[in-house]
């Protein structure tokens, strides 16, 4: 038998989206953001003098910016499975687990996986075939009350806890 688990949770943004004061707030927020962008642009083009050195401030060189080679999804578009590196990682159980543990376990606690991301990871673990999948209902809906993962919706691949957003559903038993 295959069931799915659905958490009964409304998002904060969903509760606010139809209020007039919310629209006014959004307009004000947009104006503030535009102002910040213009200010930053001016600072980059016309850098302020550096008081310590007596010269001009220098924008951080692009080479010092850490760029993730595998782009993380910004919405629920899921992972870009056309990325050649990601394809190689996802086709190898050892690399897949090392990638999950390094990028999508504790480091995603404040940005848990979306429905699409969670399902992609679940399906890849199934496809690889020799991985342990645990979609225990108590863990997935965040109803556990004991231990460090208490209250955090999660599932597990090869004994790696993976946090998910409230409301994410995955097949149980896997």
């Amino acid at each position: 038998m295959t069931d799915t688990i659905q958490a009964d949770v409304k998002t904060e943004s969903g509760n606010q989206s139809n209020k007039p004061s919310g629209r006014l707030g959004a307009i004000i927020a947009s104006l503030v953001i535009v102002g910040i962008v213009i200010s930053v642009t001016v600072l980059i083009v016309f850098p302020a003098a550096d008081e310590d050195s007596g010269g001009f401030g220098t924008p951080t060189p692009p080479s010092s910016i850490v760029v993730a080679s595998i782009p993380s999804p910004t919405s629920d578009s899921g992972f870009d499975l056309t990325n050649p590196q990601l394809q190689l990682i996802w086709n190898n159980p050892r690399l897949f687990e090392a990638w999950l543990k390094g990028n999508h376990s504790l480091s995603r606690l404040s940005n848990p996986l979306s429905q699409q991301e969670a399902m992609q990871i679940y399906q890849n673990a199934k496809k690889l075939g020799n991985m342990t999948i645990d979609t225990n209902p108590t863990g997935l809906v965040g109803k556990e009350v004991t231990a460090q993962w208490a209250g955090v919706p999660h599932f597990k691949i090869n004994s790696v806890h993976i946090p998910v957003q409230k409301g994410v559903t995955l097949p149980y038993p896997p």
Partner: protein
Amino acid sequence: MTNQIQSKVVAGYLLLPLNKVEKYRGIDRQPFEPLLLESEIDPAFVPNPDDARIWVWYPAGWRREAYRLFEENSVEVNKNKGAILSSLATARQIKDLIEPHLGSYELIACQVWNLDTQFAHEADLEAPSLGYDVAYGGGDFYSALKNGLLVKPHPLLLAEYSSLLNEYGLFSNPDNIPAYIRRFKELVPSEANSEFWVYWLSYI
């Protein structure tokens, strides 16, 4: 079936960060091990599809070297290359490489066996033991002691078992571990299907 791993105790060395959780010196402290970190791997690197090594993904530097040493000297636990090193000299070498970048780590000797085995392990009783932990055999090394008795503990587990914890947040004797894990799985439903391993940990 776990017959394959029932025939031996795995022994080796762990590198564990200091001061992750107060009054806990067990394995559930994110032991150092090779990971694929998206922010640090070489964006242009395309490996041979059959190559499962992790260190080859990194540009030259301390992490690539530490991961290479680790992967060439790690011990298999639970059919996976995990966080345990076979060589004390290599463990010391890796510790020296990573500490300037990741902070202080401690070197711990360990022996590991599956909880379901009836194994009399070969602990050196003369060694300065930290005690026994019981945790996953890999993955994120989730410890049933840390998670049942120390971090958001269950009140019934606390009442029944906290007196068995030693000063390091571990059991000093392994005899109570099977009963503890049965109780832990009853009271922590999200871990009901998890497989646990026993870790005997000792100072170097």
